[in-house]
């Protein structure tokens, strides 16, 4: 009987103590918490690096990346050389309604054209508006953080 009464009273004590401590709520939108630099918020595109190799579109589990490109001729670098052909992006859309935020596209890109950004406040009122084109993806490049230093013992330098 005594143990039971003690059990009841300790329970009351826990709730009372928690009431006295400050609450842990962050009052969004008045206050904001910054997510971790590695947080997978949104994918940003660096258009200069993209060579339209289509690796990202192929490796996406949901096939949510839509790419169209065309080839252009550039003048040769040296005198008497062949003109170089360069692939340029026409369309690079990511459908964020399908995107699983897995990061496979960012990982497989051999030219470092895709980056993760912790930006998360891009919700829309209609699902169709979640298809973002390369201009919007390029705008998000500004929110991409610098690669951060790693813990001691790590061999590889920080990469995204």
């Amino acid at each position, binding site marked *: 009987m005594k143990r039971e009464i003690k059990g009841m009273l300790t329970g009351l004590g826990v709730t009372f103590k*928690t009431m006295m401590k400050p609450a842990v709520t962050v009052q969004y939108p008045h206050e904001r918490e910054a997510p971790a630099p590695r947080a997978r918020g949104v994918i940003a595109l660096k258009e200069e690096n993209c060579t339209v190799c289509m690796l990202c579109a192929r490796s996406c589990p949901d096939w949510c990346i839509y790419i169209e490109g065309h080839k252009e001729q550039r003048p040769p670098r040296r005198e008497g050389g062949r003109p170089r052909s360069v692939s340029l992006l026409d369309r690079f859309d990511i459908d964020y309604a399908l995107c699983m935020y897995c990061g496979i596209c960012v990982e497989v890109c051999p030219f470092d054209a895709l980056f993760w950004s912790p930006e998360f406040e891009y919700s829309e009122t209609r699902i169709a508006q979640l298809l973002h084109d390369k201009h919007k993806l390029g705008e998000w490049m500004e929110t991409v953080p610098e690669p951060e230093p790693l813990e001691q013992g790590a061999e590889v330098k920080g990469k995204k």
Partner: protein
Amino acid sequence: MAIDIGWGTTLAIKTVIVLGIVPLTALILGYTFLLKMMSHMQSRLGPMDPGGFHGWYQLIGDGLKFLQKEDIMPDHADRRVFALAPAIVVLSTFLVFVVIPAGPRIRVASLDSRGLFDGVGVFYALAVSSLSVVGVLMAGWASSNKYALLGALRAAAQLIAYELPLVLAVVGVVIQAGTMSLQGIISFQQHGSLFGWSGIGFPLILTQFVGFALFMVAAQAELTQPPFDMPVAESELVAGYMVEYTGFRFLFFFIGEFGTAFAFAALAATLFLGGWSVPWVHGTAADVLGPFVLFAKVMLVAFLMFWARFTYPRFREDQLQAIAWKWLIPIALGNILLTGLLKVAF
């Protein structure tokens, strides 16, 4: 003050006061304890935006929201019974408020010296608070929903079982004070003295602590609050007997719940803590100060009730009944016996 107003006007004024006070107290209790105290006990803030200052407008907004909802009734529901049930539950709340005094002359009905019913405030309050059982059963049956029926049956069994400890707990107070009238009990506490010192009067909680504990436990069960909230077990039956109710009918249930919480807390404050009285204040000053003192005491008692509500898990129905019949009632009878013996001896 002897202004001559006819009985009709008096009745109208009193009706308006009771009709206004009950939702107001329900609101205050709901906001302070349900929204704010519960939130801080759970490490969060509760509503902060509505009204700008710590969300004081939240419940009013909720009430308005309920009022503008569509009035839905299930297809096979018993229409009249379905509509009447919340009214009966709220009716019992209003009727209890009628008899709680907030000052030496501030009360809606005195029931003190009327000849036939000479001083029956306590009796009336306890009797009338049991009316809600009928309303609950009506709600559960008329909803034509198995979950609601289960909840209503559980509720009826629980409420009836805990009536007895509630009443028996109060009998000790009545024996010691010598009267069933609420004003009489309050003046007994106000004019009493502890070993000759009348500084704080003689709050009956000091000798009737067993009765106080019993009353609090039984009141918790009467309000179907955790740990006795099987009828409204949120994670099983969702809302129990209230599950089919929406709109202003649900608002009635809500007001009934918190209004009754205030009523029981007020009864406990009156019977055990001295109600509106502070020992050295009499007369018109008591009339002015009385409601505030009562309010403060009610908040204290309600704090205890809600503190237990947010901490404990709920009992199973059979364990609940076992506690009432096997523990609370024998303890209450023992308390009465002891009080009677001591009263006669001293």
